[in-house]
């Protein structure tokens, strides 16, 4: 099918310029990429401290040892420790989705009966969006154990870390949900109520399904951020990737372990980031198709 120039511009920016096998464009972009990479590499390699940096951050034996770990020598495997980050992320994600949705629905509620709850939800969002995540982690991680209660005060640091992340991120995700709910035209509520649905049924069957569709990209964006922020739980002493890297560098006096941790986080976040891009592109294409007569 022939494409008009308009069709091409509609696709938005692309990684490789131009379409339709334009050899010249491909050659140009290849050449410019090579030049840029070469300049950066030259700057890095020719810098006065280059050898020192390469030894401290990119030493192959240290990269390897910190990845696999050696308890006998007093340091942990970062490759194993990142598994804790993944688990914290997965558990926190589920609780955040549920809690944030409840918060959003309370904040969106009307009716005088709900006023006290609305105020609480509003305060909650204000406070937890305003306080840095790391402070929430400190507060929960050191505060709850200090209470000396059964169960509540006897959990491991990873559990407190997850609780803190849920508290903090729910405030953000609540606002994402609210934006999605507000983006559904008010007329849809009228249509839902006019076929006899209650307020709750309208929310469940008409508003939320449409809201969720629009907020998936920003939601995933927050989750990419959450994946990285699991590293903050290291301040409580749980052996996750960042903490394992710290222990390695403190034991062996080499920072290559941090590079390993960084690469492992990239391996986690890049697929999610590109999945998000893919969803945005698909949504865009669908909207353009829907707008056609």
């Amino acid at each position, binding site marked *: 099918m022939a494409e008009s120039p308009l069709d091409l511009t509609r696709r938005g920016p692309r990684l490789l310029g131009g379409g339709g096998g334009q050899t010249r464009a491909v050659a140009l972009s290849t050449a410019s990429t090579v030049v840029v990479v070469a300049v950066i590499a030259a700057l890095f390699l020719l810098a006065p401290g280059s050898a020192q940096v390469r030894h401290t951050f990119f030493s192959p034996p240290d990269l390897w040892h910190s990845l696999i770990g050696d308890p006998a020598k007093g340091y942990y495997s970062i490759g194993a420790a990142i598994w804790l980050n993944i688990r914290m992320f997965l558990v926190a994600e589920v609780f955040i989705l549920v809690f944030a949705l409840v918060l959003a629905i309370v904040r969106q509620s009307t009716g005088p009966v709900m006023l006290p709850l609305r105020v609480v939800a509003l305060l909650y969002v204000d406070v937890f969006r305003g306080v840095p995540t790391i402070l929430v982690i400190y507060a929960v991680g050191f505060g709850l154990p200090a209470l000396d209660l059964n169960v509540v005060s006897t959990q491991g640091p990873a559990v407190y870390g997850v609780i803190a992340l849920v508290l903090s991120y729910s405030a953000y995700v609540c606002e994402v949900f609210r934006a999605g709910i507000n983006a559904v*035209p008010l*007329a*849809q509520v*009228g*249509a*839902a*109520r*006019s*076929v*006899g*649905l*209650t307020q709750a*049924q309208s929310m469940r*069957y*008409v508003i939320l*399904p*449409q809201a969720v*569709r629009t907020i998936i990209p920003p939601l995933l964006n927050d989750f990419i951020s959450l994946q990285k922020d699991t590293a903050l739980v290291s301040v409580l002493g749980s052996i996750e990737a960042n903490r394992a890297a710290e222990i390695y560098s403190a034991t062996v006096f080499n920072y290559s372990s941090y590079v390993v941790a960084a690469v492992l986080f990239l391996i986690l976040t890049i697929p999610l980031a590109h999945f998000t891009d893919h969803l945005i592109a698909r949504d865009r294409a669908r909207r353009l198709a*829907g707008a056609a007569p």
Partner: protein
Amino acid sequence: MSIPLPPYGAPSPDSPAALELRQVRKSYGSHDVLRGIDLTVAPHEVVCLIGASGSGKSTLLRCVNLLEPVTAGSISLSGQEITAPGVNADLVRRHIGIVFQSFNLFPHMTVLRNITLGPVKAQKMPRAEADQLARDLLARFGLADRAGDYPDRLSGGQQQRVAMIRALAMSPRLMLLDEVTSALDPDLVAEVLDVIRELASSGMTMLLATHEMNFARDVASRVAFLADGEIVEIAPPADLFVRPQQERTQRFLRRVTDAGRL
């Protein structure tokens, strides 16, 4: 609180009116949209509301469906006051179908699901029964092959017909139509008007706001002319369009005629 209502089409003997409005007022702040509307619609009657934009037609319909609370006055459906305190608006709405100018189909659901949502969720009709009802209605209005499509694949006329079917699937005792052809391309208006004609001839009680004067003349039992939130004049179309009594009605109809719409 549930209000027991006689089945559709059977007027209760002590109150012959399908719909009765008494001194209905509606204000938004200091702005009076409806200023004391009295209107009675008999069972099987089709009453058309005409009037300029902003005369209160849409607000009147939205008040009848309890989508807007009235400021004063009362509305009764088959003799039961639905504006009384404690009346469950959700239950009342199950007896009143409303169709909007802008269709307002649910974009994330197929045509079939759009139609069955109300019956299944609000009326607790078994899914199979609701599907059958929806397919029967789609066939009746020439949309049998569209059941599985999403609304954005349909033309405006088709979407509006689906919106009518969605309202009909609730077996309403009263249909409210709010300028249902105003958002349509001229060549799509006829198919929607045909649906309304069919409903009228099948005995459906209807209250509709319209700019289609010729259509109002054809289908209406009575036509009410609204201006500034009041019913200026109400009469059978043969009288209202031919011998309007009020000066304001005459002026409005003259403007409409000059615009070539009557």
